[in-house]
């Protein structure tokens, strides 16, 4: 096993990997940017080295500097976490050249899966089910023939497309020709490439993914699925395991396909094969993520395994310590991603100082956090603060437990998306597992309904606001009327001043 591992990341995932290192007797090395000197991952690590200024390209994406630190401090391996350099095959190659083990798959597998068209071709060869359609350019006549064959609605896509450009949804044969031509001219203008192909349009799909794990001796297993259909702008918000619509037989089929995909790519270490699932529970390959996922804890809770421990053991050359038939799912786990963002204001990021932090705990509650009370969330990176995970014997109990944990969780001083989760977890469609990738957008479009409970609590809140003000005023040695000149710049007086301030701020 490695004696020292560098974690080329920050925030909750850096802390999570360092905890695993501590548990395995491995010294952990943090790297940090100028604005992260006071971050939790720095004080959690056994060693810590400055990378450079705040911008990621000068710090957490600075391959040269990271490898220099690894060499200087004698780290034998680098864990990339997720994001940043985790899916960068060139970084993985550079590690190998520098004699440092990259904790992840071989660079060749990362390259194959990193290219959408190469991956699609390889997966087709491997017999992985894909959304019906063509992966090569078509003429209008070919497109019409294929659409007739696979059935409407279909999606017309530019081969070089991205960001929604050169994409058209076609619901009936009469519209195909004009849509094809519009998409083609848009693609030509945007990408200077008019190649157009066509796929069946999956209506309201679920996003379900399979966790795979392979060692460097050719063994690959799957660890069940995660349902990640609660998304906003293709960003996962809630994940759970298992999926309410996947039964033993479907899990076995999806797992076999995922293992086949991984094996055909020469995959090792932890990876995730993402699928779209339609209303008839047909599943289609979407992409493979060649790294540890944010949502790996839900899989850990239902399998009883520790994926980061296993990543480290695999990277050090060990064989998988169990076989497929040893993997059993038990209970149900749900994860909420807690972000410093304002759900009432278009999810605008809300960096700033965490003035107060009350953390949930107790039975079946896990918090993987990267923050502490008094820390200032910097402006410069992804605003994820922590992950809250609830585990219980069944899905409804896990939902109830997550609600209880959310009640206990309080992050004061910045806006977070905590209030959003209660809305989701109380929505009858979520409770009944009637979710797809459009669920959250529909919920948000419907707007918040003010709960009856809230109205009953207004008097309590009003009295409490006065009590806080009165106590603050006593603490400041004031008695009754305030003397503005005498105010001290304490938290309490600041609060009073804000409460009494006359002008209403913008927006």
């Amino acid at each position, binding site marked *: 096993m490695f004696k020292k591992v560098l974690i080329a990341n920050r925030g909750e995932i850096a802390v999570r990997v360092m905890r695993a290192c501590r548990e395995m007797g491995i010294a952990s090395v943090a790297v940090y940017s100028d604005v992260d000197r006071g971050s939790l991952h720095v004080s959690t690590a056994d060693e810590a080295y400055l990378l450079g200024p705040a911008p990621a390209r000068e710090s957490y994406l600075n391959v040269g500097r990271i490898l220099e630190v690894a060499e200087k401090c004698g780290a034998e391996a680098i864990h990339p976490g997720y994001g940043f350099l985790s899916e960068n095959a060139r970084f993985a190659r550079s590690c190998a050249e520098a004699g440092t083990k990259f904790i992840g798959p071989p660079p060749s597998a990362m390259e194959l899966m990193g290219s959408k068209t190469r991956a699609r071709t390889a997966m087709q060869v491997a017999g992985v089910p894909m959304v019906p359609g063509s992966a090569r350019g078509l003429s209008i006549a070919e497109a019409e023939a294929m659409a007739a064959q696979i059935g409407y609605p279909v999606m017309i896509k530019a081969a070089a497309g991205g960001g929604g450009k050169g994409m058209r949804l076609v619901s009936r044969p009469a519209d195909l020709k004009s849509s094809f031509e519009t998409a083609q001219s848009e693609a030509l203008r945007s990408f200077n490439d008019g190649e157009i192909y066509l796929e069946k349009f999956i209506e309201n799909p679920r996003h379900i993914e399979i966790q795979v794990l392979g060692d460097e001796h050719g063994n690959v297993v799957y660890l069940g699925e995660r349902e990640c259909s609660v998304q906003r702008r293709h960003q996962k918000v809630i994940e759970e395991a298992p999926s309410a619509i996947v039964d033993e037989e479907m899990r076995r089929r999806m797992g076999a396909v995922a293992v086949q995909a991984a094996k055909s790519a020469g995959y090792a270490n932890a990876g995730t094969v993402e699928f779209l699932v339609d209303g008839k529970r047909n599943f289609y390959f979407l992409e493979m993520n060649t790294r540890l996922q944010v949502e790996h804890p839900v899989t850990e809770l239902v399998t009883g395994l520790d994926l980061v421990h296993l990543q480290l053991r695999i990277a050090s050359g060990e064989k998988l310590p169990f076989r497929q038939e040893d993997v059993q799912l038990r209970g149900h786990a749900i994860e909420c991603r807690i972000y410093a963002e304002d759900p009432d*204001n*278009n999810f*605008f*990021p*809300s*960096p*700033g100082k965490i*003035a*107060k932090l*009350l953390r949930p705990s107790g039975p079946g509650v896990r918090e993987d956090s990267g923050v502490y009370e008094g820390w200032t969330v910097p*402006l*410069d*990176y*992804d*605003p994820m603060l922590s992950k809250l995970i609830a585990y219980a014997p069944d899905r409804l109990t896990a939902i109830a437990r997550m609600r209880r944990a*959310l*009640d206990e969780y*309080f992050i*004061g*001083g*910045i*806006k977070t998306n905590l*209030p959003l989760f*209660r809305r989701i977890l109380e929505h009858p469609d979520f409770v009944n597992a009637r979710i797809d990738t459009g669920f959250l957008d529909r919920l948000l479009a419907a707007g918040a309904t003010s*709960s009856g*409970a*809230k109205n009953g*609590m*207004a*008097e*309590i*809140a*009003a*009295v*409490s*606001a*006065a*009590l*806080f*003000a*009165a*106590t603050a*005023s*006593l603490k400041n040695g004031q008695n*009754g*009327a*305030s003397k*503005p000149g005498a105010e001290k710049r304490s938290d309490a007086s600041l*609060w*009073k001043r*804000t*409460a*009494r*301030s*006359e*002008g*209403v*701020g*913008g*927006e």
Partner: protein
Amino acid sequence: MIYEVTLAEKIYRVELTLAGDRWKCLLNGRELPVDVVYGQNGVLSLLLGGKSYEIKQESVGTETNIVVGHERFTASVRDPRSFRSRNRAGASEQGVMKIKAPMPGKVVRVLAGVGTPVELGQSVLVIEAMKMQNELKAPKTGKVKKISVAEGAAVDAGQTLAEVE
């Protein structure tokens, strides 16, 4: 002490008297037998008629929130006995209103310069944080009186950026 608390556009008059180590509380003239204890810093345990409430208070940017259980209320508290405070309040509602930064960030654009007539809700500045841009809007119909920051400047939460009169 008498406070006027505004919650969701409704005004509550709360009169608090300290009797020994307990608060006597009148809400809109009606006595509420509250039993209050301060636990963790910024957390209040309130018992009222047997019901137990854990209440937190926080300031985010320019807002002050009271959190009861999982319900969050934006509150503004005034002490009517404070003559200055009342006066200022009256003046500001009719006169100058400020636009404050809701979070730390960078001013990327000033959309309405000094002297520009603006309507309630019209965008005046754009600030950026964490790669996202946010438009800050005029709190009243009037004229931009003052822009306190330059494009490109870093600003703190709560900092006054502009005034509309």
